[in-house]
């Protein structure tokens, strides 16, 4: 495996997206996937992309981050002076918002221009073929982890408030368990956030 593809795998595995990432010469897999999206459209249903507009948006973003206006120019071939530009702009904006709400695209919170870009989660979804399991954004283990953390914290709050006294050793053990769960949960939360950021 080449160094470039290895790095890509690292980034994907860690759930860390690279903002504004464009297709580089070594990313044959990305190029293949983009062609597949536009030509074959086989993985589209698997990725739950609802409309062809969403497919076009995702395909356009393979070449790097783009603003809504740029997407309109690319997808519809319209110039800003065209009369139909505003209407199509609204369509693209709504579609992009919908994709963002599902975690497929993301944009910066700050900055003059805030182009949309593909998220790490989107790439994972698109790369998951029919023989692979669907990547979950929040697994059952994660949910269990968050629940356990909240419950441990609630017990600690009750003890601190004087509702009951389990004894020093038990309390310290509970305290340690809470910190342990909190650490696990925090990292999972951050990783999930980075996957859709």
């Amino acid at each position, binding site marked *: 495996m080449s160094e470039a593809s290895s790095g890509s795998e690292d980034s994907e595995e860690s759930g860390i997206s690279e903002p504004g990432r464009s297709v580089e010469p070594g990313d044959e897999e990305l190029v293949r996937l983009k062609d597949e999206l536009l030509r074959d459209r086989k993985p589209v249903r698997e990725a739950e992309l609802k409309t062809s507009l969403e497919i076009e948006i995702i395909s356009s973003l393979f070449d790097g981050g783009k603003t809504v206006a740029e997407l309109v120019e690319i997808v519809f071939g319209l110039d800003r002076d065209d009369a139909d530009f505003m209407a199509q702009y609204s369509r693209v904006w709504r579609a992009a918002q919908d994709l963002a709400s599902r975690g497929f695209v993301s944009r910066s919170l700050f900055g003059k221009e805030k182009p949309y870009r593909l998220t790490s989660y989107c790439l994972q979804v698109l790369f998951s073929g029919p023989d692979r399991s669907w990547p979950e954004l929040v697994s059952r283990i994660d949910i269990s982890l968050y629940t356990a953390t909240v419950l441990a914290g609630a017990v600690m709050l009750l003890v601190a408030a004087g509702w009951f006294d389990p004894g020093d050793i038990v309390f310290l053990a509970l305290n340690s368990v809470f910190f342990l769960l909190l*650490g696990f949960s925090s990292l999972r939360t951050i990783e999930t956030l980075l996957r859709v950021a």
Partner: protein
Amino acid sequence: MDRGPDVEEVEPQTGGGLSMKAKWTLFMAIFFGYASLVSLTSAEKALDSIHTLDPAGLAIGISPALLAGIFLAVLGLHSMSASRAPVPHPKRRGKPFTRWTYRLSLLVLSTAALGTCLWLLAELIKVSQGSWTVYLDRIAPYIPGDHLTSTTLLGVSLVIFLSGVVLMLAGRRESRALLVIGLLAAIPALLNILWADDVWNLDLPLPLLSLLLPLSWLILLYILIVPKMTLTGVRAALLATGVTFVVLSGAAFVVGFPKAESESNQDRLNALHARILFFEPRIGIFAGLCFLLFLALGVAAVWRNDLDLDSWRIGIGLAVFSVAFVTAATLGWQIYYRYFVPAYRVGFTSVAVLLAGGIMACLSLFHSFYSSRHGRSRMLRSGGVLLISLAVSSVGIGLILLDEVAITQNRVTPVPRWVAPYSITLGTSSLSFFCLAILLLLLGWKLWGRISLLSKRPSPNLVPLLLVVSLPAILFVASLVIQQASVAALRLGQSEELPDPWLFSPATYRLLWRTGLRCAGVAVSSILAILSVLFIIPTVNRIRTR
């Protein structure tokens, strides 16, 4: 905002609702808010429980770290057994086991780091509630400065080494660097622990341990995470860490500063001195750990980006920042000691030299970040300035140590001058600083004058470069340890319980034994310094000829 105001005006008000990113940001904020509430509410209860359970509470209190250690050991064994398997399990296809191990390690380490950091926060809250004197009374008799430093260093080096083992088993190339750094950093710490006779005294107050653990775990966490982070992430981590250190150390100072106005001058001076003795090891720990942390960040950034422009910018910037931090901490401490404690003064020249080094380091910090926009040449030049300023600072520290030698020689103590271990230790450690100064001067000059030194991209094997970067740091830390040991020796010389060296009592033997060990430690550190100089020169030449 998208391009053009005309476009922005017609932006529709309906869409897909909150983005997934916003939802998760909100969730994370609520989650951490809840965790903070729980931590703060239960902090006092936890501390009370610990203090009633000493030393059993000590073991339980640090259980997050202990659990993390157990996890690491299990993961290491698991990785070992997995690496022996001739054929990967079919279910693991596409998800390499090593990555699973790596991610679990991150989970465990982040757990320990977060837990112990919150513990530290709880300690500060406890202190702010007025029980500071309780801690002070427990701490002052032990004066554990050198013990703390060495224990910290040993813990850090051990953790780094263990993580190197785990990563090696997981097949990651970062393992080599971690193994080397862990081993080398452990040497001075082990030596210093050998010098002390009550290192593992369980009466060591818990707050001290609670200060040590989070920092050591944080270092390891960043070492492991940074290679996987984007450059923006590295900057964010750096900023967060720096702010955390500044806030925590600032809070410690503010909370612990003497407040009693009605006390007599002598009482206030005594209280001040006691507080200085309390804070001194912390300054050393903060400075040393910051240095290690930023060094690790810089090395990791360089490693990850394979010596491109950004990595050099970050690496040099981080190194400069660490030097500025260490210099500022040392300088602040020295000035504080000299001008607020009348019984302890040294020459103004030494402080002035150190001050000059600190100012130069700070200036080079700004220059480095500023010039990073203008190409590699200017960046390397600022890196050279950084190393030269560090050399000046090292000379200043060496001069201060020599001053202290002179002071101790003139001080009336029960110990004859010829057997005074602190004189030997101070003298040799000052020589270590001078060696370090020469080394840094050499490297700084290379960077300053020979910009073409690194213009050609070296091979991906960065171990020699890593050693070049890490050895001066290890030397610095070793010198820090020696300095701490010498301070402890000074206090030993002032102790009324010191035995008469002319009587061959068991106590005398112990004193001489400790003295011998200290001298041996200093000798080993000096040999390390000389060896590193001998190693670095040909390494630099090799890089240069590539």
